[in-house]
Each structure stands twice: as C-alpha cells, then as structure tokens.
C-alpha cells in the first residue's frame, strides 16, 4: 500500500496512541523519554499555561522538545523533526513527528478527550424499534458531534443520519477512518448507575 499524503503522520499517531511505546533505537529512545507522559506533562505545565491549546502552543511545545533533544546530544533527531515540521517530509522523521503529535494531543487535550468520551457514552445509542438514524438519542448525539467538530475546526457533514463525515484537509485524495456510534444493549439491572 502506497501512502503518499500527509495523513500518514496521523495514521502513525493512531497506531501509537494508547500503546505507550515507541520503537527504534538511539535518538528515538531519547525522544521517547522526552515524550513520555511525565516529562510531557512537565513540559506543558512548566511553560504552557493549563487549558491552552492551538498552533502557538504546539509550536512552543515542539520547540521545547527539540531544545531538550539538542541538550541531550540528539541534534540529528532535533534537526529531522525541524525539517519535518517545515514540510520536508522523509520517512525517518515522519514517525518521530507522529510521536510528537501523539504526545501533544495526549498532554494538551487529555481532559477534553475524557470529558467528550464520557459525554458520548451518555447517549443511549442502542438499536430500538425506531431506526437508529431517526432515534432521538442518535439525533442528539449527532448534534453533539457536530458541535464538537465545529469547536475543533473540523469539517462536518451528515448523510441523513446514516453516516457523518468529519474531516481535515481539502485535498483531492482521501484517506478514510471508520468508527461507529451505536452500542449493544445491556441488561439495565446489571448496572448500578446509568451512563
């Protein structure tokens, strides 16, 4: 499979999130150490005020990571990252860039991710006699997703409640990811509290 477009960093990011590991040797070990939760949190709280996100914060964060790399004698990795951030992609730096994006999202959006996930779970989106796409719980969830997409600056299009598209970038070729928002029903009596 040939992937030539910039979705690759995110795809790699996806493969890294939650696994808590980075492969490779040498500079990657240092980078991993720097991007590990604890040091990332240290970086974020040391320099960037809590609750702030956006392009400027990412830039500050990236500069800190590169500074830390250079201080640790990993100038080569820092230079690679810098080149990649300037749009000069190569295979070696893509993975590292994906890692940095991953760490950034984890550190700076952690609380938002937790609260949005909790919110989504509150919608009781299991199949009933009404078609899912017409079920008020699904409709409310869809409205929430639309609001979230708009808040995050992402494209959003609803296809009659069957599928919602959420996207970044407007280029010609698309790389797709697919998820679903319906869940299986549960025996209500087995749960001690509602969602």
């Amino acid at each position, binding site marked *: 499979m040939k992937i030539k477009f910039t979705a690759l960093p995110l795809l790699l990011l996806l493969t890294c999130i*939650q696994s808590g590991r980075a492969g490779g040797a040498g500079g990657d070990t240092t980078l991993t150490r720097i991007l590990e939760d604890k040091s990332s949190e240290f970086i974020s709280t040391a320099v960037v005020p809590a609750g702030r996100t956006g392009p400027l914060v990412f830039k500050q964060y990236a500069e800190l990571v590169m500074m830390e790399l250079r201080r640790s004698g990993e100038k080569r990795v820092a230079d690679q990252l810098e080149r990649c951030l300037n749009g000069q992609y190569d295979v070696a730096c893509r993975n590292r860039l994906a890692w940095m994006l991953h760490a950034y999202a984890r550190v700076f959006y952690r609380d938002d991710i937790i609260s949005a996930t909790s919110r989504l779970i509150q919608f009781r989106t299991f199949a009933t006699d009404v078609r899912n796409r017409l079920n008020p719980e699904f409709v409310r969830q869809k409205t929430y997703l639309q609001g979230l997409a708009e808040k995050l600056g992402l494209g959003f299009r609803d296809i009659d409640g069957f599928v919602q598209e959420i996207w970044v970038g407007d280029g010609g070729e698309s790389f797709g990811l*697919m998820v679903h928002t319906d869940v299986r029903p549960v025996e209500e009596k087995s749960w001690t509290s509602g969602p």
Partner: protein
Amino acid sequence: MIWGRGAIDDKSALVAIMYGMRALLDSGLPLRNRLILLVGSDEESANEDITTYLKSNAPPAKTVVVDFAYPVFCAEKGWCGLWLKTSRGADALQTGLNLVDLQSGLSPSIVPGSATATFTRRGIRSA
C-alpha cells in the same frame, strides 16, 4: 478509567481521532489531501449505514476501520456459536433434571454478567 457502553467499542476511538485531527491542525503541517472519518450509526445491527452511504458517496482511496480495541482494528478473534435445542421440560440427557428456565443475557454476541438455569427434579424446584 471510563466505564460504560461504547467506552471501548467504539466511542473512545471517535473522540481520540477527532482530537488527533485537531492536533494535526494545531501542528500547522500542510495538508495536501483529506483525512476523513466516517462515523457509522448501525454497526451492531443491520449495517445499513455504510451501505447506504456508498450508494451516493465515493469511498476514500484507502480506509482503516477503527472498531474496538483502538487504535487499529485488525481482526476479531472469531467466535463459535453452539445452539442446543430441546423442548421445554424435556430430559434428553436422562439426568433426572428438567430445564424449565434459562436466563443468559440478551444476545449471543454479548457476554452476560451472569447466567441462571432453573431445573426441576422430582417435582422439586431448585435453582
């Protein structure tokens, strides 16, 4: 830790991807193409969602299904169904026990939290 329906399958993946997309925007990296997330509504039952979508929308050049056990879904472990048929009250195995009731969850694809079988023996009801 988040407990609830969809915490793993599949709402957490949806949120993680949306914030991953946001991180991509924050990074300021030039996006020459489009990364598109298709949010289905009917995976657990009829799969009416994506089939309808594909009738009037071209699929992305490549798509990764991020379903259960985020990040990337490779394959299900597979499952095996065993259906036992017996008429209520029958004693096919000659155990002296008659199965009169069985409560074991809502669906073969949902692991029940508990299961209860009720038998009768010589007219004495016991669980």
